[in-house]
């Protein structure tokens, strides 16, 4: 055996050894993997008669060697039994919450098979929430993005803006409220930033007759007094949080504190695919109806699958809801769009996956915006729903695996897109959604003629009218 040059690199949690074997082993068949002490992951053959291979202990941490990494998403465990997506996710919580989280996980798996529960949930999604939401062909928007030779992609909008309460949030809130009822919990808590998730939670609590307490940063309460009033009209108690910067992340911490104290009577309706396991998986499953419907509707409309899926990413729930169904379909491109605020170099943005580093926040390991001391950096976006310094662990995983691509757009670009959809289709999108729409500017010129793009129109923009008018001077 010729001398093999070995280099070893270590990244968090894994040890990767790279072996370069020179000729005469040009044939892979002669190489017997079972003789090796490590799990043999992947072999690439280079054209210059040498074999390069990656040996890893952790089968999910194949790092890119050259160019595109070949992978099979169908083999991934999303999540594994400990709630991890690769190295992300997990359950970084105080001991007092471990039991509640396990109980929740057990209940969730049981109800997934419970026909009565599924039927009840389906009925409520249909009659109360107004599902299924249409897959709408945006003719004028498509026309707008056509190139001078008349070619361009076909743009479809998944109309989550038509749901009751005006956003995708309710899919998860309603399912969790139903689950809480099954668990015999009478008290519901939630955190909220701008108020959308708070209103959705208060709504479902009113519907099911559950006691509802919403934690909201005192600063946010001032900026969103109408949403506070709405939550109170729905019968919820809104508690102001004054600690820290008095915004969403502090409200979340306070809500978690409440849950630790009252875990036996209380269920915590987390609004996004963040937090400790089983929340990221659960919230994703409850939103997965978006992707399931899309598959069916795409088949009806054009007899195939979408080619590209685009969604905005704050915590990541609407994006996971659309993507999840198609993660195993490698020919479907997944694109998430974050908020670049005043620009990625301004320091005032919420582009977690672009500028963040790995750490633990709110019970899960994921990318997050942190300074050198590991303190959370206050994010900024014109849209409150994207104004979260973390991101769901599954998104962090999909990014690292290269399965999904993540970009960002600025406040100004989002506002332009807001105006554009209003004028071209008569649909006023939420400012969050406008970020996804803004990315079409960069995306469409690169797509072949007739590519089917499905964009998640995750919410309506009535709530953003005052903000938009101020900036757009309409």
């Amino acid at each position, binding site marked *: 055996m010729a001398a093999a040059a070995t280099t070893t690199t270590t990244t968090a949690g894994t040890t990767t050894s790279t072996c370069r074997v020179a000729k005469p082993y040009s044939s892979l068949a002669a190489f017997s993997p079972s003789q090796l002490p490590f799990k043999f992951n992947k072999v690439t053959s280079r054209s210059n008669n040498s074999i390069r291979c990656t040996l890893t202990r952790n089968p999910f941490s194949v790092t890119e060697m050259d160019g595109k990494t070949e992978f099979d998403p169908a083999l991934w465990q999303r999540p594994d039994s400990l709630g991890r997506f690769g190295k992300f996710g997990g359950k970084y919580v105080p001991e007092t919450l471990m039991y509640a989280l396990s109980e929740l996980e057990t209940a969730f798996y049981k109800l997934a098979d419970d026909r009565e529960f599924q039927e009840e949930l389906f009925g409520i999604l249909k009659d109360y929430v107004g599902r299924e939401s249409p897959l709408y062909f945006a003719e004028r928007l498509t026309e707008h993005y056509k190139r001078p030779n008349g070619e361009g992609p076909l743009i479809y909008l998944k*109309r989550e803006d038509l749901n009751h309460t005006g956003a995708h949030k309710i899919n998860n809130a309603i399912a969790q409220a139903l689950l809480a009822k099954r668990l015999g919990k009478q008290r519901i808590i939630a955190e909220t930033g701008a108020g959308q998730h708070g209103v959705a939670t208060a709504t479902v609590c009113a519907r099911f007759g559950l006691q509802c307490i919403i934690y909201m940063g005192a600063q946010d309460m001032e900026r969103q007094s109408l949403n506070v009033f709405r939550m109170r009209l729905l019968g919820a108690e809104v508690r102001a949080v004054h600690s820290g910067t008095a915004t969403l992340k502090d409200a979340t911490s306070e809500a978690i504190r409440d849950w630790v104290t009252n875990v036996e009577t209380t269920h915590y309706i987390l609004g996004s695919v963040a937090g400790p396991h089983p929340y990221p998986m659960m919230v994703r499953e409850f939103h997965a109806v978006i992707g399931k419907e899309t598959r069916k509707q795409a088949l009806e409309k054009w007899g195939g699958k979408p080619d590209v899926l685009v969604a905005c990413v704050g915590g990541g729930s609407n994006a996971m809801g659309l993507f999840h169904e198609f993660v195993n379909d490698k020919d479907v491109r997944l694109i998430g769009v974050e908020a670049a605020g005043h620009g990625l170099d301004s320091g005032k943005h919420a582009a977690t996956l672009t500028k963040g580093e790995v750490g633990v926040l709110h019970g899960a390991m994921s990318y997050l915006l942190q300074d050198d001391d590991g303190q959370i950096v206050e994010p900024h976006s014109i849209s409150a729903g994207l104004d979260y310094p973390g991101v769901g662990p599954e998104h962090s995983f999909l990014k690292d695996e290269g399965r999904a691509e993540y970009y960002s757009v600025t406040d100004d670009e989002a506002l332009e897109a807001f105006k554009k959809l209003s*004028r071209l289709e008569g649909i006023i999108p939420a400012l969050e959604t406008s970020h996804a729409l803004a990315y079409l500017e960069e995306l469409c010129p690169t797509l072949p003629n007739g590519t089917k793009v499905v964009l998640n129109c995750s919410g309506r923009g009535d709530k953003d009218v005052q903000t938009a*008018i101020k900036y757009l001077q309409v």
Partner: protein
Amino acid sequence: MDMSCNYIQTFFPNHLLKVCPLLPTKKVVCGLVTREKAATTTDSSICSKTSSIMRKPLTKSLVEIETDHKLNKVVNPGKFGKFGGKFVPETLVACLNQLEVEFNFLLQDSEFQEELSTALRDYVGRETPLYFAKRLTDYYKNDNGEGPEIYLKREDLNHVGAHKINNAIAQAMIAKRMGRKSVVAATGAGQHGVATAAACAKLDLECTIYMGTTDMEKQSSNVLLMKLLGAEVKPVEGSFKDASSEAIRGWVGNLESSYYLLGTVVGPHPCPSMVREFQSVIGKETRRQAMEKWGGKPGVLVACVGSGSNALGLFHEFMEDEEVRLIGVEGGGFGLDSGSHSATLARGEVGVYHGAMSYLLQDEEGQILGTHSIGVGLEYPGVGPEVSFLKETRRAEFYTATDQEAIDAYHRLCRLEGIFPALEASHALAFLDKLCHTLPNGTKVVVNCSGRGDKDAATVFQYKQHLMQQ
């Protein structure tokens, strides 16, 4: 004579028109045919020939024909008993006739119907659910646990949040078919304005909305929405009635390239029928959904009545079903005796307004009275002629709910079902207080939740502040 035949051949679509030249009076008597019925008013002895006509697209110029009075009755009389009609200046008659012809044609045109159906499904979000309001039902149960079952027809889930869009999108499509480049409309509360602006944006039509300044103040969020959607909002001193008049004035000056999009079941024929036809999807869906859910028909239908579009949209399908009770609820304002209300059917008298004969709130000199309701969309001083007809024939019953009762109903639905009803729809919900205990156990009540009330949160907030200050 041949020339006049050719003239008509150019402008009327095939299979719709059988032309019989009538020599003595140099007038053409024609029958408009729909698939279900043949035109038969013409005397066969003088009909020497009928010609089949090739369809050519309708041109922009106005078709001026004399319409025989008998013709009106056969096809679409425009009269509901003594109510309705076409009380308009001569300049508008021909235009309305053209509209009627186009409308009747499109009712049968499968291409148009499919396009509309797709728009209603993918753009508007139909069909809207028929939602069993369990907690509201339980609230109205008596001590024995008996009471009616209350279902809400969720028009609040439509795109832009009210039933108005059903009509706006259909008429905007008609405008496009007719080759019009711009649309003109008047709006009271703003819902019709927003729906029209949205439909025009989608169909690439210019849009001008006239709105009364008092309304613009009360519904400023809707004004912003219209502007964002690309519409031009023209303020008119006063309220909806002034905005309407100004809009019509604006339109008349530009009849050939502009389309007047009426938001409700008022106005001269064919407008009330047209708008009702487009809103009747509400009732059609309800019939089917009721059959699926409980294998029968609704026992009682309840809807708020401003000018009557959402009510007729729900009721129309069931008008022949005598066992289905139809109940309309008007804006009682500060109370019927306060003088500050919008209860046209309760306190109005018959007169002609905006081109049709109907009930309206007028003083002794026939001047239109100012109206008030906390549900701004109910503040129309008149009411649709077909609604007046339903009252006259006693097919439907009409009551009122005061501002306070509507606000209470608003609160109640929020708390019990997590749904914000529009303040207009809250009037219908308020009437449940008086209705439910009179109904036998298990009666199926369908309330038209005609719009969502996000727009009204500020109003309700101010009302509460105002009450607290007193």
